[in-house]
């Protein structure tokens, strides 16, 4: 006679072994996948950390041939471009997200949603080209504005879709509660639904910023680059990625070192935006 415990024990050791083995395999696979990330990080850190100092962060590039100088203009330029891009990406991205989640029904919404998905898969260099034709050519000058528009357009689909998803997480019953208080729908949308998912939406925006902060290709023929301070949005402006690119293909040893330092600064910038995004996102916790 076979007892229940015998049945239960049948093949148990084998199953347990298989379980362990698979677990180990997945762990190794994850390790392999993460190795490049860590080696890149480590390499950038080792190469860059030696050249980061106060003057690197606060000074303009030194004239060709001289040593010293920094990338302050590029750092500030990247920030200016990010602000411009965020203004464009946020306004139209949020508006699109709100439309899709709150009002979008039927064919038009499907088309918009589909276009947003298409737009997010358009290579960034193509968007740069588009902005070049649309803004740089008519204005007959590379400009910070053009760079900001290019990055902003890249941000739109990311922000739109993440906002849509987050707004849809707000239950329909919450909207009804707002309507039942005698509030017009637009007020319910902005002050209850949007406000209620603000932390998530800010996270989405920050992730979009982190994504475009390192974009290089679309800047090459929009913002171009600038070795000096530039406070005029209709003039070319420097940026970290472009400056890193220019420096690293140059023949000068000193510039190579600075390119690594710039790369480290850029990576740290993007990392801290990412971290900040995670910090902001605490669903359902009020902040008064």
């Amino acid at each position: 006679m076979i007892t229940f415990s015998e049945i239960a024990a049948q093949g148990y050791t084998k199953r347990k072994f298989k379980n362990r083995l698979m677990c180990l395999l997945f762990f190794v696979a994850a390790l392999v996948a993460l190795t490049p990330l860590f080696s890149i990080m480590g390499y950038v850190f080792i190469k860059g950390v030696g050249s980061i100092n106060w003057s690197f962060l606060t000074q303009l590039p030194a004239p060709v041939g001289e040593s010293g100088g920094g990338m302050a203009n590029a750092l500030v330029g990247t920030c200016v471009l990010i602000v411009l891009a965020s203004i464009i990406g946020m306004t139209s991205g949020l508006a699109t997200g709100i439309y899709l989640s709150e009002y979008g029904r039927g064919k038009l919404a499907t088309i918009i949603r589909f276009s947003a998905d298409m737009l997010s898969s358009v290579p960034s260099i193509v968007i740069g080209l588009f902005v070049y034709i649309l803004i740089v050519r008519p204005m007959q000058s590379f400009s910070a504005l053009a760079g900001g528009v290019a990055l902003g357009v890249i941000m739109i689909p990311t922000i739109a879709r993440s906002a849509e998803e987050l707004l849809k997480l707000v239950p329909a019953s919450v909207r009804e509660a707002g309507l039942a208080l005698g509030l017009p729908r637009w007020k319910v949308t902005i002050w209850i639904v949007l406000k209620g998912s603000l932390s998530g939406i800010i996270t989405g925006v920050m992730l979009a910023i982190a994504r475009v902060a390192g974009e290089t290709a679309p800047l090459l023929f929009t913002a171009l680059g600038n070795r000096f301070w530039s406070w005029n949005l209709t003039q070319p402006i420097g940026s970290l990625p472009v400056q890193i690119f220019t420096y690293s293909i140059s023949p000068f040893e000193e510039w190579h070192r600075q390119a690594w330092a710039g790369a480290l600064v850029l990576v740290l910038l993007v990392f801290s935006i990412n971290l900040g995004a995670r910090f902001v996102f605490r669903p359902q916790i009020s902040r008064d």
Partner: protein
Amino acid sequence: MDMQPIVRVRKLNAWFGAAHAVKNVSLEVEPHSVTAIIGPSGCGKSTFIRCLNRLHEEVPDARAHGEVFLGDTNIYGEGIDPVVIRRKIGMVFQKPNPFPAASVFDNVAAGLKLAGIRKKALLMERVERSLRHAALWDEVKAKLGSPGMSLSGGQLQRLCIARALAVEPSVLLMDEPTSALDPIATKKIEELIVNLRKEVTIIIVTHNMQQAARISDRTAFLLLGELIEFGATSEIFTVPKEKQTEAYITGKFG
């Protein structure tokens, strides 16, 4: 007491697309009374009360037809703005639905704030009064700034009642407000309903027949979208006129 009916429903019909959910319902509700709507699941109770504040029409493809007088205004009359109507006729839903990421205070004050009332003192006064009416003040007065979501289910439902009361409606619609709550929380809400009738007229949907018997003055029995019987609660539960009502309240179906 003014015995003119405060709500008069005349031949109200409601549809979801082609499905006829409320059929030719007429009834009258006296001020400061509690009216219970009972009937088996799917008979159109929710649909019916959602027509009374014109929330039904917010559902895609849904429409309503008929007359609903609030005082002497037909809320389905031409040129009537549903937004204004909903300020006069509040609603509490089956599941507590507090506003996300808003504090206890902001939840209750939302209707006033978004209607443009800014004065801190006035807001504070109204919030306190509403929370007292909802029998929640003592439990939350020390944590008005904490997230609404941090309250228990029963407290949340009372928070939603306070939120609806804050805009001072004259009628309060309640759609099975205690069906998601335990008996103790249910008892609290039943007590507050009985007290609230001094402030507002209440129309409440309930699945719980004892509840209807305990708290309501009049009861309406709906079946398949039709109003089968409407009368004094004491009579409906003891000497119903209609066979179907009797079958329902004695548990023969539903």
